[in-house]
């Protein structure tokens, strides 16, 4: 594989870190300037990432070595198709989230806004670092940075509840970090390298028992952020955070980083062949299926809208991992593309929840009667997201589900088809009441009967992400070429072409 050496990955990572410190330096005195740093950094980051797409599409990888610690132990960026995928998702959605955040915090007159935007920018720095890291060590470095950078956002409200949520978040993620540190040290000790390699590099570097042990450790470590049951408990609790943060946590950065980590482990550390030989993939698939279905059922029981969305996230993330662990061409394609599709749909849904919170001060599903007449754009976008997540065409969720279902046939494991279908049914069960209540129920007394939307800064981003979800459903290769990149990544992993 051709390697292009370029410092662009570094700049893609650094630009938001520079912005973070500019934000800190500007502070509360000049809000517009502070916010413009966020926007500029968001655009710059996306453009830098996007400018590398053509190179990736030629089948090359872009590499930049930052620091060498020890032979075989480096801080290095390498962008392959899979990393590019995550980088594109995160950097494009950050722009939307930035605009939305500005609308949100100003509408609510939130406190500590400087800290908020600072932490946000740091989160994105670490996320892009995760996406572009060339090896497990670099991955861990940025993964831990992400943990720390998210903490101020989770406890933004500074209430007792928020602080407890923050503690819970740390208890889960830092423990996971320790497990990962140990597991990665073990991998290094066994294999002498940590470089991700399409198709895995661990084959033959230890006994079967040891490799299975390592696999379990790594998946547990990354699974915490990915919300694999029973390690998901922190996620609904973290819903106490402001809504843009939840959107970021759930769609852009944190959980997706966890899933990205799991996929890296499955496809780039162990690889399909080794996992087949170890025979662990099927057990793993069953465990993940449990999460898929279980989270769906739990979501039905939630009245708090954001908590309902949180369980839907757990459900979808598990589907992505299930797609990867089925180890067939279609299921992997479905899993990887679902990372993007889910991100766009879920961020729409969270944006809607936030808009409802800001405008109507309502957080519970049972309070939404008739609100759709007051906020048609918001509820329309919500409907698109919900339809997409249920796997109904023409929204992009359909494409991922199609490939995931195809994958179950290829793997000859029809039972997982049942899992996917059950999950889609559950999606309908817990999302459609929201739409139904919003549009068709008799309005409650406090609903304004005419058009009265949330601030434009919030409505526009959520409309755009909703529209993009449809566009990616009709033309999956539009704009940023998610589909081609996914295909390329899968080809690399399977060693074809």
């Amino acid at each position: 594989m051709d390697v292009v050496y370029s410092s662009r990955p570094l700049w893609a990572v650094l630009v938001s870190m520079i912005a973070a410190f500019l934000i800190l330096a500007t502070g509360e005195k000049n809000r517009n300037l502070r916010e413009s740093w966020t926007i500029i950094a968001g655009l710059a980051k996306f453009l830098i990432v996007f400018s590398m797409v053509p190179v990736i599409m030629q089948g090359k990888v872009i590499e930049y070595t930052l620091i060498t610690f020890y032979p075989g132990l480096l801080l290095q960026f390498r962008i392959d198709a899979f990393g590019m995928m995550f980088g594109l998702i995160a950097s494009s959605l950050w722009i939307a989230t930035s605009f939305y955040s500005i609308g949100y915090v100003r509408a609510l007159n939130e406190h500590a806004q400087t800290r908020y935007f600072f932490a946000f920018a740091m989160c994105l720095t670490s996320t892009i670092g995760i996406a572009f890291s060339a090896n497990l060590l670099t991955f861990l470095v940025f993964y831990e940075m992400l943990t720390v950078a998210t903490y101020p956002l989770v406890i933004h409200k500074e209430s007792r509840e928020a602080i407890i949520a923050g503690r819970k978040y740390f208890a889960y993620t830092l423990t996971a970090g320790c497990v990962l540190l140990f597991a990665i040290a073990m991998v290094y000790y066994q294999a002498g390298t940590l470089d991700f390699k399409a198709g895995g590099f661990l084959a033959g570097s230890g006994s079967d028992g040891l490799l299975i042990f390592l696999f379990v450790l790594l998946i547990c470590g990354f699974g915490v952020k990915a919300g694999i049951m029973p390690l998901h408990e922190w996620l609904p609790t973290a819903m106490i955070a402001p809504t843009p943060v939840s959107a970021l946590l759930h769609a852009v950065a944190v959980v997706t980083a966890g899933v990205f980590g799991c996929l890296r482990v499955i496809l780039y550390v162990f690889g399909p062949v080794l996992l087949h030989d170890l025979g662990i993939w099927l057990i793993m698939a069953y465990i993940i299926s449990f999460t898929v279905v279980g989270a769906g059922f739990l979501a039905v029981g939630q009245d708090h809208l954001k908590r309902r969305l949180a369980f839907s996230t757990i459900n979808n993330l598990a589907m992505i991992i299930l797609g990867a662990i089925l180890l067939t061409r279609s299921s992997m394609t479905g899993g990887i593309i679902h990372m993007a599709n889910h991100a766009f749909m879920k961020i729409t849904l969270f944006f809607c929840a936030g808009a409802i919170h800001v405008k109507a001060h309502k957080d519970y599903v049972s309070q939404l009667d008739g609100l759709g007449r007051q906020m048609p754009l918001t509820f329309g976008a919500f409907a698109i997201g919900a339809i997409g997540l249920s796997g109904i065409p023409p929204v992009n969720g359909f494409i991922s589900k199609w490939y995931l279902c195809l994958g179950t046939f290829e793997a000859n494991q029809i039972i997982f088809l049942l899992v996917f279908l059950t999950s889609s049914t559950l999606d309908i069960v817990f999302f459609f009441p929201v739409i139904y209540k919003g549009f068709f129920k008799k309005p409650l007394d406090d609903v304004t009967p005419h058009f009265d939307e949330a601030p434009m800064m919030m409505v526009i981003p959520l409309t755009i992400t909703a529209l993009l979800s449809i566009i990616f459903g009709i033309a999956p290769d539009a704009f940023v070429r998610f589909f081609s990149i996914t295909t390329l990544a899968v080809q690399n992993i399977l060693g074809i072409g």
Partner: protein
Amino acid sequence: MAEQFAALIIVVPLICSFLVPVIGWWKKKLCYPWVVAVLVIPVIAALGVLNAVMTTGKFSYRLGGWAPPWGIEYALDYLSAFVLLIVSVISLIVAIHSKKSVEEELPEKTVPFYTLYLLLVTGLLGIVITGDVFNLFVFLEISSLSCYGLIAIGEEGAPIAAFNYVILGTIGACFYLLGIGYLYIATGSLNMADLSGILPNLYHSKVILVAFAFFTVGIMIKGALFPLHIWMPDAYSTAPSSVSALIAPLMTKVAAYVMIRIMFTIFQPHFSVEIVPVMPILGWLAVFAIFVGGIKALAQTDIKRMLVYILVAEVGYIVIGVSVANQIGLTGAILHIMNDAAMMACMFLVVGAVFYKTGTRNIYEMHYLNKKMPFTMAAFTITALSFCGIPPTCGFFSKWYLILGTIDAGQWVYAAALLGSSLINAVLFFRVIECAYFKPMQPAYANDGGETHLEIQRDEAPLSMLVPIIIMAAGVILLGLFSGNIISSIIQFAVPASF
């Protein structure tokens, strides 16, 4: 030139410490600039020595021109040059920081304070540089005696803590002295290089075993390895801020250095690992140190006491690295000597600044400290993350190598202890961070308006405190990022070749 540097490192602070009273008698205010100026010289000299070692290999300086093994020799190799640099840099930075806090806490004792300060630094540097076991004892006592004095001028309980330290410290030093005696009976030599040549023929002699045991216990007392750490929490937490900031990072580290010297230079690794079953004992003690230190730290509300108990755990880290006795574990241990010195110094400097500004060390009284002292608290946060082993701070990298070492040795319990300690540290420090950054003084923050929080005036520490703190905090990150270079150019040569 390099040989002169070796002499300067000891001679300059020693002589200048005796000049401090003279200067203080003339003009009290001049003591501080004098001490800072004097302490620059060991830094430069240490750099020169390290440079010489890196270019031409290890060398020695013969004191008074007497040839070893009869004369006293200053042995400069990678390990000692490296530790010299750490000691001299940290003592300089702490000295810069000390100005205001000494004026505040010890207004009438500045002159004796600075005299003893320089003597203490001399002692520490001497322990590191000397290649003679008896000379090491002398320097050990120079540093300990000045340390007793410095601790005793602290707050209310300090004299009692200092007296207990005198008693236990003397037992430690005497054990060390006895060890020398037994070695001398068996070999007739006091020179480390000479000893390491003679000893292998005598490895099965009982006398040597006894000597080794005395050495180990003596250094364990001085280095505060569990369970012989009992003197430390009282002594270090009641000492004046600047004193704790100097001794907490350095005394234990220097003792750890002596331990590595004894086990792997005077005695060969072959002896320390295979003939005497000391490594498992040390390793398990270190595991207990980590857990006991961590749990005791959880019980403290005084942040300085909390840090001292963390120090107990950190000593455990280094000892684990020594006790796995392999190349990579020892690399981790030596790296952690540096990293922990930087982290501890930074923490104690921050605590000193906070105490100077707010007069409190209770972690539950630190509300809104991030608004009052944003830079200080930023440094605190960075260092706290380093203690929790979050990359890319230096704490992560020493942990990485230590864990690789334990994996290499197949010691899973040690690895678990190292990881568990990160989590305990996270709890410890985030207790403080929560309080300082996020705990509202007012009733809970109302969601519908941002006006409820108070306007807090910024009240940052004076520059003489802030600059050292920021340097150390930057150091915590930079030492992490460049740990690879440090290992490949210095530490890998500092690890004994016989591994």
